Each structure stands twice: as structure tokens, then as C-alpha cells.
């Protein structure tokens, strides 16, 4: 029923966004194996593209996103400039944050991806602050905070959910449950198999959704974001998906059963959606090929842009600590 509201154009857009995220991160996989190419650790969301695309596509431009260490998909779905994103991941001076964020702390305030924190569980208290500002200014915007199943064990998440519940703040809490917190399975670190049930304890609606079904994620995100936007307070959504790569690219997943990976490989959100769109006649194989080629070309151009960019010079190493530095 809800599905009818999603136009063919929007479905095609979902597909191209997911493909672009996949191609972008596949390129990072390759680059991360080349010594000295990418500083730091590369943390990828391969297999989770439907979550990022479904959520972000459901938002309005004034909505704020607070992301986490696995943020590339959220940013690409929000249509962050691919060149400056790749340059930042390479820690180049032309990067969106001048090379000071690297892959882990990407923030693009001009498209309202306001803050990214790699401190697990730190996003929700930040989101409470952003949502408070929206409520205080009587803005139409809401704040969406995306965190993992591992983060759900952090006390800060509970403090934030409680405060959002007490003050009826427009926050959509999204737990992207990818079945792994580091090398731990949910049953090893989580007292409940259904993290969304915790929403009840903070007096907000909580739902779970198949995170590999982009339209289901989109529809639930629309519904819950409207709840937040209406002034009814926060909401909680758990998206059930799977982390196809390790925690980071150095992680060889020795603790993962290859049979389980093979099962989830078959549930690939992109492959699944491609079949759906072909079956429904929304896209034909030629169009699918064009989308693939365009994504590949954009990623290639982004890498070329990053490669051509210099690292930031030493003169900027200590700028931007303060707005008004102590010796100014």
C-alpha cells in the first residue's frame, strides 16, 4: 500500500544511490590495501547500502543527520560532493574538512550532516542537542542519529533517549543493527534480541525493519520522521542488516562463519533491488548498465581529484582549534 507512493523515478534514484555507495566503498577497499594510500582505518558499510539510502532519502533538507564511524553511505545518500569526500578520506587539503577529519570524523554541515562521532554511542547525546535547538527555534527540521547495535550498550544512548522522551524532542534514533559489534554477536553483548523494544522504556514508538529492503526502510523512516516532525516527540527504528566486511579493513573476519557470509551475500540489498526493478519494468538492463558506469566514472573522478590534491601544509595543523585562539 505504502509502496504505491514511491514513484518509479524515486525507485531508480534509490538504486543509483545504493550503487554509488557500493562502488565508492569498493574503491576504498582497493585503496586501503595500497600502503600509504589512505591514513587511519577504513570502516565500511558494504551490504548496508539500503539502510543509508532508505533513511536519508526519506528526510527533508532541513533535517539534521548525526552519523558515526561507518558514515560514507549516509553522506553519499545525502549527495555530499564525492570529490571532496574522497579527498578527505585521503586526508588531502582539498577534503571537505581540510584533511582534519579523515574517514572517521566526516562532517558536512552545509548539507546538514552536522556531526560525526567515532566515539561509540556519542551520537545520541549530540542529536539531543541538535533536536533541542530545532525545537527551541520552532524549526520544521528533525534530527536523525544513526548508531550501531554495539553503541546501544552505551549509557550515553540511554541518557539521550530518556532526555528526548522527557522533553519530546524531534529525534529519530536509528539503530543500524549489522549483527556485529567488533567481533561480538548481538547475543554476546545485548540482553535483548530486539533493541527497538527499549523505545517503550523511554515512551517513544519503536519499530524494526528489514534493513536490506530499501523501500521498507524508506517507508518506515518517512512514517517515524513525520511522527517526530509533528511535535509528538522522538521515535526509534532498528534496521536489521549485516556487516559484510570486518569492523575495519584490517579486520580479516576470522570469527565469522563463511557460510553465514554466503547467506547474506545472497540477501545483498542491491542485487535484490535490481531484480525487483527489472521485474517491475522500472529499469531495463541497459539503464542498469548506465547507472553502474556512471557510478564507476564518478568514483574514478573522485579518486583522480584526491590524487591530484596535496596534503594540507603544516601551516594549517593548528588552525581551527578555536574560533578565537588564546593568543589572538
Amino acid at each position, binding site marked *: 500500500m505504502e509502496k504505491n507512493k514511491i514513484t518509479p523515478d524515486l525507485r531508480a534514484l534509490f538504486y543509483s544511490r545504493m550503487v554509488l555507495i557500493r562502488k565508492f566503498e569498493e574503491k576504498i577497499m582497493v585503496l586501503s590495501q595500497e600502503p600509504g594510500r589512505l591514513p587511519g582505518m577504513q570502516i565500511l558499510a558494504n551490504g548496508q547500502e539500503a539502510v543509508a539510502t532508505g533513511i536519508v532519502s526519506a528526510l527533508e533538507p532541513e533535517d*539534521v543527520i*548525526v552519523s558515526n564511524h561507518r558514515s560514507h553511505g549516509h553522506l553519499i545518500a545525502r549527495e555530499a560532493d564525492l570529490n571532496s569526500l574522497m579527498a578527505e578520506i585521503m586526508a588531502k587539503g582539498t*577534503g*571537505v*574538512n*581540510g*584533511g*582534519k*577529519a579523515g574517514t572517521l*570524523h566526516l*562532517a*558536512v*554541515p*552545509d548539507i546538514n550532516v*552536522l*556531526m560525526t*562521532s567515532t*566515539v561509540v554511542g*556519542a551520537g*545520541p*547525546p*549530540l*542529536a*539531543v*542537542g*541538535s*533536536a*533541542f*535547538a*530545532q525545537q*527551541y*527555534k520552532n524549526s520544521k527540521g528533525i*534530527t536523525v542519529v544513526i548508531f550501531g547495535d554495539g553503541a546501544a550498550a552505551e*549509557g*550515553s544512548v540511554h*541518557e*539521550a533517549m*530518556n*532526555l528526548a522522551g*522527557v*522533553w519530546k524532542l524531534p529525534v529519530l534514533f536509528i539503530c543500524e543493527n549489522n549483527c556485529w559489534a567488533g567481533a561480538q554477536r548481538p547475543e554476546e553483548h545485548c540482553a535483548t534480541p530486539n533493541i527497538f523494544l527499549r523505545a517503550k522504556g523511554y515512551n517513544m514508538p519503536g519499530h524494526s525493519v528489514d534493513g536490506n529492503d530499501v523501500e521498507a526502510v524508506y517507508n518506515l523512516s518517512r512514517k517515524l520522521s513525520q511522527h517526530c516532525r509533528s511535535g509528538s516527540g522522538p521515535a526509534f527504528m532498528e534496521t536489521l542488516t549485516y556487516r559484510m566486511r570486518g569492523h575495519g579493513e584490517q579486520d580479516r573476519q576470522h570469527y565469522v562463519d563463511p557460510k553465514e557470509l554466503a547467506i547474506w551475500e545472497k540477501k545483498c540489498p542491491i542485487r535484490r533491488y535490481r531484480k525487483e526493478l527489472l521485474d517491475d519494468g522500472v529499469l531495463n538492463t541497459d539503464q542498469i548498465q548506465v547507472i553502474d558506469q556512471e557510478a564507476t566514472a564518478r568514483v574514478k573522478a573522485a579518486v583522480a581529484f584526491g590524487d591530484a590534491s596535496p596534503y594540507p601544509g603544516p601551516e594549517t595543523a593548528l*588552525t*581551527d*582549534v*578555536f*574560533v*578565537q585562539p*588564546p*593568543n589572538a
Partner: protein
Amino acid sequence: MNQKTFGQALNEALTIALEIDENVFIAGEGVGVSIHQDPNMATHGLLEKFGSRRVKDTPVSEAAIAGLAVGASCLGLRPIVEIMFFPFITLASDMLVNHAGKLRYMSGGKSSFPLTVRVKAGVGFGAGSQHSHNLESWIAHSPGLKIVWPSTPQDAKGLLLSAIFDPDPVIVVEDMMLFRMPGDVPAGDIRTPLGKARMVTTGTDCTIVAYGSALYTVMKAVESLNEQGISCEVIDLRSLVPLDKACILDSVRRTGRLVVVHEACRFCGFGAEIAAMVAEEAFDALKGPVKRVGAPQGPIPTAPTHEKIFKPDPDNVILAVQEAMGR
């Protein structure tokens, strides 16, 4: 001049900030309805005057309170949040240290966080180590954060107003032992600039640097030292970050001696930074050893007999100055 207590001066600053800037709001545990009905509390009467939209009682959730400040300031508000006692700032430290202090830098200067954290500190009221533990060195050691510690009612007002309207995160330490102290406080929107120390007395023999209620311990000692013919130059630091290095170095170049006094532990205390800075930058001017007065390295005890060992008294300062003088 108005005569106001330290607490009333803080209250005036908060009132003015709420009046002149719609983006200012106050949040914390008991900032609206407090268990204390004390007109010397900084937030006394603000809820009645400004309403619950702008003066917000929160759950007992220090991480969420600090996160509220970081997130709201990133969208252009000027939050003033209260962490009740200095040791409780540990519960908010991730939001302050990893977020307030770092997010602007990591954004490449795209974001800013004009937030103020008010926190009560002090030793000498018998509440023990989980209410009395001065952590200014932790804050000062964390990049991206500023920290000030007023010692007079006038500076309580002036530093708090400067902190609120500073574009960066500032921690304002409010010394509990000073809340009832009266003093002259100019009316209106007065600002004490961040990073400017105050010369309390000029002297020729020894520079003494202090902040907060330790300043008054120093002033008692200075009276006795004067009687002994030792002339001291006392600097009220007011601001730890930014630090008024020039004021300290100029003074030490005149007197040739330095004693630093604070109530935090000496070991890795803020006095160590000042001592090291002087050793590095004015070694040639020193005529005697740099001395530090502070608490021993242990949790603050409860028994008055123990607690007084941890709180510097004038005799400790006198002894330190005499040692610096080689007497």
C-alpha cells in the same frame, strides 16, 4: 557600585545573558527548581523570570546535559549548562573532551561550539572526595576547551558573561567557598576578558600566582610576609586557558621568584605548568627555587582534621615563599 555576593553576581550575569540574547538558554540539574532556596545560588529565581523554555531542569544525566550543549551550540544556540560538582564532570567528559574540544577542529573550522559549562568546585565543606576534587588540569590539558576560575564577585560576573559570549567552549569554575562573599560589582553588561590575569598587589621579592579561593589564603600569608619585610606580587590568574603568560613572566622577571598556590593536588597540578613555563622562558631571571603549594596526592578526606591537610593554609604559603627566598 552595587554590593553583591559572588553568587548574586553570577546570577546577574545569567540574567543579563538571558535578557540580551534569545539564543541563550540554561540547563542542568536543579537550575530551575532547586533543593536549595538560596538567593546566593547562581540560578536562583531565573525560572520564575524567564520560564521553562529557557531555564530547563534536566534529568540526572551529565552526558546528555553536555551533549545537549554541544549539539545545540552547533546549531547556533548559546547553551549554559551546569554540572553540579567538579568531580561529576567525569560523567560529561566524553562530550566535553572528545566533542566540544575537537569537533570544530575535525570539521576543518566549519562548525563552532559557543557553549558554557558552569561547575562548582571547592575544598573545605566536608563532603569528601566525590564532591571535592578540582580537575582544572584535566580540562586545561584537553585541546579546544577554555577554562576560567573567578575569585571576586566582579570577575564572577565579568568572566561568566565573557564565557557565555565567547565563540568557543568555556568551562567556568565557581568556587563554592566564595558564594557568600560580598564585593563591588558594576551594574550592566560587564566583561572580564578571557586570558587576562589580575595584578592584586605589586611587590619586589616574590611573585605568587593563585586562583579561586586559594587567592584569599595567599592574601592572608602576604600580610605576615609583609611584616617579615618580604614584599610579594600577587597575581590572580582568573583564566587558565587562555593563560596570561606575559603577566606571569613579566612579574617573575621583576621579582626573580615564583610560588604557585592552588587547592588541587600539586602532582601534575596546574602549578606544574606555570613552574615549567617559567623555568623554560625566564630561567635567567630566577634567584631561587620555584615552589608550589597545593594538596597532597590523595582523595580529599571528610574528617576536618584530615581535610585541612589537603587545603593550603597561609602557613603553607609563608613557608613556600621563605623557601623561595632561601630563608
